[in-house]
């Protein structure tokens, strides 16, 4: 057994990696189309009206607070939870009614779901064994993905002998080796500690790009979503509020729910916003990012020059400051409203102490009028 494995490792050369990398492209159109998906448990709706077109090789993040239905949506796409309405297409194929084992969809679970009775190689080879791939071919392909996730030296260990990060990489390799048309990942990094999480995040993204794999990634972590995705789908209370590129989602949230979840927006209603903007906004609510607000101290700009178009000065008092590393977030209380304002943390000497009188200005080009 060990002899044949060593033999196949030495026999497998670089072209094998390239072959796997180009396989998904040759497999044809792997775009994912969701149309009118809905799911109810009893009378409560878990998600509703889910429509999305995901391009071939695109990395999509489903971002939302816990309980927004994003994991259930992922499970429904995998076929693990039945749908009440709607259809799912991968490429030209309608997979809505297919059982999970026939969908050609790979999935990585939050808690790895590795088979405890099997070694790493057998865990990864399981899918190929189900496809009745010959033993030699199986060993070769397992070997290739093992190198892709940098675990060749752990091949003959059992899952319980591995660290969390290693286990999740095995789970990823196990899903990749069968060359799924779509890869689903259900909060795969949530159970890992911060350092491993950052490393694995970049690794997942690199592998996904090199394989051109259509990927749907679920997370509640805004940073993860912004760093990894081609597009982010923001989910809230069972609906997709906004589908956009990360930077658009961040600077142009469509509604107050989106603004409330992204960044640390100051959400103001029209009456509150009037003295800061110098006019009454058309919409009922406006959103202002803390870094699009400016301060002046004793008549001089503080923490950066004012932008070309600012609203009138509004006086306030520093209630507290929070040091976020490279950024200081001030909470400043005016006569009618309280605002969070970010400045760059250039030097500890210039920190504003509690009780300091300041003026606040809004960058009028960055004011987000919200539709709801």
């Amino acid at each position, binding site marked *: 057994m060990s002899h044949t494995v060593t033999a196949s490792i030495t026999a497998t050369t670089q072209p094998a990696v390239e072959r796997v990398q180009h396989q998904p492209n040759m497999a044809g159109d792997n775009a994912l189309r969701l149309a009118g998906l809905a799911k109810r448990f009893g009378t409560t709706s878990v998600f509703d009206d889910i429509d999305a077109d995901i391009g071939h090789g695109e990395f999509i993040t489903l971002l939302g607070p816990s309980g927004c239905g994003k994991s259930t949506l992922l499970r429904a796409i*995998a076929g*693990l939870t039945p749908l009440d309405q709607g259809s799912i297409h991968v490429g030209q194929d309608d997979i809505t009614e297919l059982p*999970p084992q026939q969908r050609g969809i790979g*999935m990585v679970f939050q808690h790895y779901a*590795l088979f*405890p009775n099997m070694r790493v190689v057998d865990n990864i080879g399981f899918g190929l064994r189900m*496809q009745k791939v010959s033993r030699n071919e199986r060993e070769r392909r397992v070997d290739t993905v093992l190198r892709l996730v940098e675990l060749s030296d752990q091949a003959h260990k059992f899952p319980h002998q591995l660290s969390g990060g290693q286990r999740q990489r095995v789970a990823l390799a196990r899903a990749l080796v069968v060359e799924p048309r779509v890869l689903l990942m259900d909060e795969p990094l949530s159970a890992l500690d911060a350092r491993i999480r950052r490393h694995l995040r970049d690794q997942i993204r690199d592998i996904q790009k090199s394989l051109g794999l259509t990927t749907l990634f679920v997370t509640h972590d805004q940073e993860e979503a912004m760093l990894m995705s081609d597009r982010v789908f923001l989910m809230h209370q069972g609906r997709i509020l906004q589908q956009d590129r990360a930077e658009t989602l961040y600077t142009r949230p469509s509604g107050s729910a989106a603004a409330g979840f992204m960044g640390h927006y100051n959400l103001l209603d029209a009456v509150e916003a009037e003295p800061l903007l110098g006019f009454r906004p058309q919409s009922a609510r406006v959103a202002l990012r803390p870094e699009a607000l400016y301060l002046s101290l004793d008549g001089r700009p503080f923490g950066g020059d004012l932008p070309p178009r600012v609203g009138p000065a509004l006086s306030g008092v520093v209630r507290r400051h929070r040091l976020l590393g490279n950024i200081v977030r001030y909470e400043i209380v005016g006569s009618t409203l309280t605002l969070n304002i970010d400045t760059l943390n250039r030097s500890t000497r210039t920190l504003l102490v509690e009780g300091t009188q300041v003026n606040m200005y809004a960058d009028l080009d960055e004011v987000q009028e919200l539709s709801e």
Partner: protein
Amino acid sequence: MANPAPVPLPAQSRRLSSLPTLNLYGVVLVAVFTSLALPLLATLGYALASRWGATLMPDGLTLSWFIELWTTPRFLAAAGRSLLVTIGALVLSLVLILPVAMLAQTRYPRLEHWMNTLTLMPFAVPPVVSSVGLLQLYAGGPIPLVGTPWILIFTYFTIALPFMYRTMTNSLRAVDVSELMEAAQLLGAGPIKAFFLVILPNIRAGVQIAIFLSFSFLVGEFVFANMLVGTRFETLQVYLNNMRGASGHFTSALVITLFVMTLILTWLGTRQAEHTVKEAAR
């Protein structure tokens, strides 16, 4: 020259602190062990004695009682019947209980509540009472089973049920059954294949423990065997009961044989259990 003096001190203090506790522990252990082992040793001695009458020690040692027992066709037949009934009951309970435990764990959590109540029934109803009930049920009517081995297989199934179900539920709980099933299915395995390749190997140890231990107490079962089937289908315990008028040496050999059989099975079961604990601790 000055060195050797301090050496005895630590040794002495160690002896002082550990000796009394060790002694107490040892005394209790020896007392318990002796009281448990003495009857068995006496039986073993009697089984090995050629004659043990008025004297304190047996007259001589012999294996002839064992040889006589092991060559008695009636004994061998009884042993065969016991094996048949016990293995039949275990196979039946495995085939029926494992799927139920599996479904209760994954798809129908409400089933677990009912199973918990059901598994208490064999404890709540004494064997003498339930055997009368079973006799009434199976004496006539469409399925006259009294006197056949079938009735014993079904009855033993009910005795083994709580034990088998509990052990299997615990093993299933130790692995995340639904997630493993889902992972296997997404990799292309049908539910049946997923169960045999992914779930069963992970609960194998628990199932083995349940089987070994159930086997050892089912082989020793007497009340149901005697009440329901009696001499028409003589099992080991019924045979032992029927032989009580025979030579004491002969029945002693029978008792020792039964004991060793049970001992080996229990030992196999517990060894498996320890092995599993070590596995889990790794």
